[in-house]
Every structure is written in C-alpha cells, then in structure tokens.
C-alpha cells in the first residue's frame, strides 16, 4: 500500500511544572490508518492529543503534520484536522445547529453547506429532531454525537478522538466503529485514544501503547501478538503496564472494606 507519513513526532516531551508527562515520544503515522492510542489513566494520552491539535503550545521536540511544522504552521494544520475532546462540554445555551454554524463559519464554510452537512450528519445519529433544541437538555451520549458531527463538518483529513465512545449506547458505538473504518478507507487518518480495549483491538490498524509518558508497544495487533503471545489486548495491556497482580489488589480492596 502507498501510505505516506502524515504525522511525524520527534522527541516529544511535555512538562507540567516539575512533572514530566511525556518522555521523548517518537512516532510516524501513515495516512489511511486507524491508530489506537491506549494507556492507563494519567499515561499522557490526552496530553499528546491536545498537543497534536494545537491546544497546548508549549512542548519540547518537533512535530510535523502534513509536512508542516506544528509550531509555525498551526493554522494550516488546524484547517485539516478534526478534534473530538474527551469531556463533552459545549455551550449549553446553544442548539447543535447554532454551534455547528459557528464552527462552519469560523472554518470558512458556506452557511448553506454547513446546514445541509449538519443535518445529514445528525440524521445519521438519529438526532435530526434535536437540531434546534438547546444542548443543555441533552444526555452525555447526545452531546458526544454533536461533538462528532461538528468535528467532521469540514471534512478533515486527520481526526483526533479522545475517548469518542464514552457515553454512547451500544448502537451508536457500532455505528461510530463502522464510521471510522469508512473514513480510513477514504484515506483519512484517525488517531484514537481510548480505554476500551476490545474496540481498539477490533478496529485499529495499529496500536500504540503508552505508559508513564513512554511508548512501550507499537504495531498492529497481530504483530504485537506474535511477539508476546497474549490472548487479547487487555492481557497484553496489563502485562506491559506492569499490573499483573490484579487479583491480589482486588483482594486488598475487599479487605479495606472489612475494616
């Protein structure tokens, strides 16, 4: 396959005060792939995604996206990138349509185009009747759907998702999974950070596992499996992140109750 490298990360480091959250991350990401970015809580997943989307500006190392430098050509990169944040927080007093019209206009889309696209996307999620209701009345899953739609409005080539499935019901999860596979087939790249091992295992072309700010495994599930003989991603995850004594911990947990 003729994949070109669209994200190049060299020695990416990030500190919050004294605490170093990312240690020399090096990655190359090819187009048309779904990248599953996994790791335990606090491993630095969200931080990486935020840096790549241009939400966090101060970092060490070099990042090139679409051959452009993230530091100097942020604007050009942002034009081609879609971002779905982790916590589905939106302006509550707006309706999805108003929110998407704002995004569309800021991204330079024609109003008519924004509206038809918003309707079409929301229709897929069976949310067309909610287009003109305030977001304040929505459940978490509904908000997540609005976020997914608004991130796809401008037809981005690279999509960053931070836990995109949180709060979605089973049908929507299946739908988003299908959607991601379709997007990848069209040559779009999806960078996908998640805790949900089974989903990542099924749809990712490549899995990157990070722990304490370091990449500790990288490759397709088959490749990783060949090296380690774990029966599924979950097992591999727990082995690599050094938490093999789950049953002992669970027992300690129970003991804590009994005191």
């Amino acid at each position, binding site marked *: 396959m003729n994949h070109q490298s669209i994200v190049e990360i060299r020695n990416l480091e990030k500190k919050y005060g004294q605490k170093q959250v990312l240690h020399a991350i090096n990655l190359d990401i090819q187009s048309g792939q779904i990248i599953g970015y996994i790791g335990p809580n606090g491993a630095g997943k969200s931080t990486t995604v*935020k840096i790549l989307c241009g939400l966090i500006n101060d970092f060490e190392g070099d990042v090139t996206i679409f051959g452009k430098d993230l530091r100097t050509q942020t604007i*050009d990169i942002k034009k081609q990138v879609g971002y779905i944040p982790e*916590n589905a927080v939106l302006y509550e*007093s707006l309706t999805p349509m108003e929110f998407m019209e704002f995004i569309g206009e800021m991204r330079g889309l024609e109003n008519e185009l924004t509206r038809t696209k918003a309707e079409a996307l929301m229709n897929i999620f069976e949310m067309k009747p909610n287009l003109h209701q305030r977001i304040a009345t929505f459940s978490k899953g509904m908000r997540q759907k609005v976020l997914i739609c608004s991130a796809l409005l401008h037809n981005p080539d690279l999509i960053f998702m931070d836990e995109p499935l949180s709060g979605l019901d089973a049908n929507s999860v299946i739908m988003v999974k299908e959607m991601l596979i379709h997007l990848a087939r069209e040559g779009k790249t999806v960078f996908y950070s998640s805790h949900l091992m089974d989903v990542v295992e099924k749809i990712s072309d490549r899995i990157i596992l990070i722990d304490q700010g370091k990449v500790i495994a990288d490759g397709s599930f088959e490749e990783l499996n060949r090296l380690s003989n774990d029966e599924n991603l979950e097992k591999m995850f727990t082995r690599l992140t050094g938490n093999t004594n789950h049953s002992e911990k669970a027992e300690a947990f129970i003991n804590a109750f009994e005191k």
Partner: protein
Amino acid sequence: MIRFLLSLFTPFRWFIEKMGADYNQFIRILELQLTMDNRRMKGIGNNSKKETENALIKQSFGQIVFGIFFATFLYIVKSSFTFYYFAHIFLMTMMAMMIISEFTTILFDTSENVIIQPLPIRGNTISLARNAHVFIYLSLMAFNLSVISVIVAIFKFGIVSALIFSVTIFLNVLFTLFLANILYLGIMRLASGEKLKNLLMYFQIVIAILFMLAYQVGINMVDKTHIQDMVLPVYWYTYFVPPAFFSGFVEAFSFNLFDIQHLLFIAETMIIPLVSIYLTGKYLTPVFNRKLMDLEQGDRASKVKVESTSPGLWYRMMIPVFIHRKEEKAPFNLIWIMTGRERLFIQSFLPSLAYILIIIFVQFFTKSFNYDELVQSNRYLVILYAFIFVSASLPVSLLNGNNQHAAWVFKTMPLLSPACYFKGFIKGAFARYFVPFFLPLSVIICFVWGIKVLPDVIIAFLAIYLFTLLFYYYQHPNFPFGLEKSANQSGTAFVKIMGLILTAVILGYLHYLLLHWFNFANLMLIPVYLLAIYYVNRVFIYKKITWEEVDEVNTYS
C-alpha cells in the same frame, strides 16, 4: 482561617442539632464550601490564587469606605435611638441587596447535590450549612460596613453602648437571613422549574433597580439640618420595625432605661431573631430543600423546546453596521444568540441599564421641572453620557457563566489571532444591548432639543462605543460566560464605578467646553473618536489580544 471560623460554631452546637441537623456533617459541609471558595481559581494563571484573595480584600475595603461615608452621616445625628435606628436600616438594606444580588446563586446552587445527596445526609443539614455559608459572608460584610459606625458610637455614647450595638448587629444578620428565606419561599410557591429560575432572575433585577432608585432619590431628598436634631417618635407600629427594636435594645442597656417601651424592645430583640432562625432551620429549610429538588428535576424537561432559526430584522440591520470582516461574523452571531439566553448575563447587565434611567430620572424630576429652561440648557449631555455605564457593565457581564470547559472550541479553529473573536463578541453585545436603548432616547432628545444636537448624539455614541471597546479589550481575555461567579468575587465594583463616573464627567465636560468654545467646535470630536476607534479595532487589539494572552487565562479541556 477556616478552622477559626468553624470553631465559632462550636458553642451553638446544641442549637444546630435542635434544628434537626447533624453537627459533624454540618461542619464538614461548611468546611468543604469554604475550602472551595478559598481555592476557586480564575483561569490557570500562575497568580490566580493571589487574585481571589485580593478580591476579598478589595471588597472589604470598598465596604469599609462605604461604611465611612455612612458613619460621617451618622456622626451628625444627636439622638442615640435615631443613630442606631439608621445604622440598622443601612445595614439591613445593604445586606438585603447583597443577598439578592450575590447570594441567590449560592442559596439556589444545586451543583453539589450530585455529591452530597447520595450520602446519608439529611436535607436539613445541607440547607443549614448553606445558610451558614451565606451567614459567614454576611457577617463579614456587616462587620466591614459597621466597624466605623461602632467607633463613632464609642465616642458618642460610650463603650458599653457600642458593645451592645455590636451584639445587635449580629442579631440583625440572623434576622435578615430569615427574611431572605421567607422571601424566597414565597417566590418558590409562585412557580417551579425553568419558570422559577426566570422569575428569580427578574425579581433580582427589579429589586436591584428599586434599591438604586431608593438610594438615588433618598440621597437627593435628605436635608442635613433636619436630620441633626431628628428624634424619631415611637408609634404603635414602631414595634414592628426591626431596626427600631434593635436600636431600642441598645438604648435601654446603654442608658439603663427600663420602662415599658424599652422592655418591649428588649423582649423583641431577644426573642425574634432567635425564634426566626429556629423557624428557618426547623420548618423553612425542609420546604426550601424539597422545592429545590423539584427545581432540579423539572429542569431538563421544561427546557426542551425548539428554538427559532431565522435571525430577526434587528440582527440583519446591525450586521452591515458593525461587521466588516468575515471572521468576526460568527463570534458576533454567537454572542447575539447567547446573550439572550444566558441568565447570569441578563441578571448582571439589565440593572445597569436601569441605573442609567434612574440617573436621568433623578436629574430631571427631583428638581423643579421647567420645560423651557430645559430646552435652553445642555442637559441632554447628561442623558447621553449616562450611558457610559454600559461601557463597564457590558464587558463584565460577558464574563460570568457556567461554561467553564466549553472554550476549547475556540482554540481548535484555524485562526492566526484570537482578536477577531473578541471583536465579534463585544460588537455583538453592543449591537444587541446598547443600540436599541440608545437609539430611541436619541430620537427623543433630537425631538426635544431640535435636530441641531444630532452631532452631539453621534459624538456621545462614538465615545461610549470607544470606551466599551477599551474596557473589554483591557480586561482579561476570558472567553465569554466561562467564569464562575463566587461569593467572594464581587469586589472591585465600587472602584470601577468611581472611575467611570470620572470618565463620564471628563468626556462630557470636554464635550461641553467645546460646545461653548465656538460654533461647531464639537464636530472636531467626531474624527478624533472615529480615528481612535479605527486604531483600537485595527491595530491595538491585535497587539493586545494574542494567543499567549488568551491561553494564560483560559483552559481548554
């Protein structure tokens, strides 16, 4: 500090338990709330903690200054009963205003219920803690406001009298809190859910306006020589006026007056506040709590309604006037929609508009009114420049709201400079909330004073627009409606208002001088202001509001 405050409740443990609260839980909840107040951060700036502490100091300072003004007024009062009577009235009014403008949000705050309600805590404990929380801030305020009056009382009536005065101040705070509870329960009976929230909002606005009106009219009507020798007569209904029995109590003990009249006052002072706070805890708060829970439940369902999609005529008229750059249109539109829906915005902005009307009203109707004389004068300048209050209140009102974590969307957009956001925001708010009020008044002015004052109207409009822009661009570039309004935040208003009045007077006076210098001298101001606006919008803002500045005060998560 928190420990100390909490320890003050220890002697009243029996009383709190009597009202049906679990004392340990009560203290824990209170501690939590105070700790959160203490740590409430403004953005992610490094010195954010310092900033909030400063706010509390600034606020206290403002209140003390206010207290000094009042104490000087009290100083000339000879009768001790009148002295304490006025002191208590002043205190009650200020506290009532504070409760209505600042603490309603705390009393009706249901956000911590998610955490607290699943725990085995009785509703009474929660409400009592909430009341105690407000009580702490009210006491601090009462202290600041009356500390100077107490000193004055020492000199005038002796130390014993002043000490007893301090005790009644404390009782007054309790009593006012009780009144607030009753008031809110009454309102809650009238409506529920979303309607109630709107009703509360308008209630707050109306009360704020009434207080301002009473204050303005009152200040103008007070005759100093009269007050000096004023002795308030005691009628039968005097016994029902709370400040009267507080001052009767002080008088009785400072001068050993124990006749029937004073004994009645003493009895009232001892019984009413304590009984009222007992009633609040025992009977009112449970009802309050139940209503509050309904409020939360009813919230979601009642909000589901379809919003209209077509922009109004006014919007379409304003767009070509204010928006000349494509990228400002979306922020303009966003703020146009949201300012109509964000409750906190309406709540804090509308009273300032009313304030302008009051200034105008007081200017023209408390003094002898003569139409011919009026038309000859330049007093339309006062009307026009009164609108400069908008310059301060509009930018500030755009800050507060419950959208702390929604600002990420602005950062993900491909924009070289965030300036166009802020230009669009302030223009949108200005077009929607200033122009429609200024325009009709201008028409009336042109009608009364003749079309020859039209240039003056234009000059004033430009001056106010310029200052609104400057105020907005000079405050921290927080994205709109993302700052939490906290109990100890409202501080600097006093200083700001003073500065504003000064600005308005200077601008108005400059305008006035030019009018009298030679004919059409005032026209010079038009190009000056236009150039200044052009400079501010095209050059200044791009230097002032950069992503670095914006990132400093906003969080994107």
